[in-house]
């Protein structure tokens, strides 16, 4: 089973992702970037679902850090956020996110997108 890490400060969304994805993936979730980074450094998951509005270190910054890190830079990242403006979406993709999903989302759509990204990234390796 592929492993997914969720970094989102809203407990409702962490629980939702767990509910939606737990059938097909192993889901671990944390509430802020520092804790997320700790887990990433310990054991690399197969994919990261990353919120943008996080306390202290935001999602954009964390995404940049991941892309700059030798060990983490190949990690597939999907931004999962309430920010729906085109600029935010572009910024996320420019900073290296593989996909951008806006909240609210439909559970099926999220699962499909995760699978797609995993496939794409798997093919490259």
């Amino acid at each position, binding site marked *: 089973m592929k492993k997914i890490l969720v970094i989102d400060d809203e407990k409702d969304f962490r629980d939702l992702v767990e*509910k939606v994805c737990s059938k097909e993936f192993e889901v671990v979730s944390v509430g802020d970037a520092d804790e997320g980074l700790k887990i990433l450094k310990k054991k690399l998951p197969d994919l990261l679902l990353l919120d943008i509005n996080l306390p202290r270190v935001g999602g954009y910054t964390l995404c940049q850090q991941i892309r700059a890190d030798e060990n983490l830079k190949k990690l597939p990242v999907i931004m999962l956020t309430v920010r729906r403006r085109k600029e935010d979406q572009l910024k996320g993709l420019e900073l290296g996110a593989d996909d951008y999903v806006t909240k*609210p989302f439909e559970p099926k759509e999220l699962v499909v997108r995760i699978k797609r990204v995993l496939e794409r990234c798997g093919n490259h390796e």
Partner: protein
Amino acid sequence: MRIKTKFSIFAVLLIGICVLAISYSIFMIEKKLFIENQNHELTKTILQFAAVAKEALIAKDDLLALNYLKALKKTSPGFESGYLINKSGVIIATTNADLLRKKKLPEKKDNSIRISEDVNSGEGGGKKIGLVCIDFSSEVLKKLTNENIKRIGMQVLFASGLVLVFGIIISVVFSSQLSKPVKKLVKDVRLIADGNLDVKVDVSSNDEMGDLAGEFNKMAESLKHLDHLKSDFVSNVSHELRSPLAAIESYINLMLEDKKELNYENLVRIKNNTARLSKFIDDLLDVSKIEQKEVSEKKAVNLSGLVEDVVSLFAVQAEEKKLEIKTDIDEQIPDVFANSERLKQIFINLISNAIKFTNKDGKITINAVQSPKSKVQSQLTSDIGHRTSDYIQVSVSDTGIGIPKDQLGKIFDKFHQVKGTVDELKGPKGTGLGLSIVKGIIEEHGGKIWADSEMGKGTTFYFTLLTTVDGI
């Protein structure tokens, strides 16, 4: 009319008036001095002639006096004729040969000035031994005077013209120097007014213009800060509105897709998020009231009664978590001067926070004392600036999870939530506005709020309220 032109005209007028006044006075003084000097010269001439005449009389040397007179005729301007008369009244030396040895001095001509002087035997007195007399042509003297006055006039005119020209040049240069920074200031301030807040007014002169530029820069800086605050606020608000909405919609989507998810737990989540939304909107309205510095209507309020009312609102919640809420307010305490609705809001926000962040079987204590004189207090008194007996200090303490020391200063900022604590708690997520509202209300009431906390042991919020004695 431009400042530069105004200033130039003003300066030129001022210089002109000054130059005119000064040159007129110089001219008048010079004229007077010249005339005095001329009179002095005439007196000197006659006195010197008298001295020579004395010698001539004593030595009986008429020729000496005659030669002296001849020399005077050549050298002294305006000299017409000179006479030396001995004590018997006979002219013994004169430039007018016809009158030599005659006993009678000719009448003074109309256009002459006659100066005469007695010749005495001793120094400055003694017996009169003769008389000297010189006629000067008043026409020649007047001509000489006029010529000289004209020359002086020309000199003064030339000098003042020179001063005036230099003055005009200097004032024009100076006024354009003066208006240059103003022009630059106007240009830069126009840019700032157009919303370009990164512009720095670049006037570094060490005077009022420099000060003004500095003030403009400060203004632009604080505008920029306000602008940032505003856009931060807007983005925070939209995020805080969107998050619960997105949660509600996402959970509805989940339940629509999968009937098994249509359960109590998920409905509670949706309810909590709607509660969070409406709480957030209430808080926003409160914040806006406070930001607009809306002054509330205040009257004497009995603190212990008000606190009892608020505490009763939380009875059910406290019961659920098995929390004890204790109030310790002296009934003798004077009334506070406050708006009772807003005062309630303070207690509601602080007590609901305390309940939220305190684990089961904890304790919440509300305390009020009149003008405490602890160490923190004496410091505070000087801050607030009123006498120690004029306020009441209220404290709301809990035995909750505590606030990290480095966060204590930030908890009153809008949208600030202490990291890592919020998730583990039940119920709707907070808005991050509660404490900023409390702080706003307390400040509007002339008080001050601060907090003290120990991780794992609990937090105490202190605030001050004015008593009616001071308030009314």
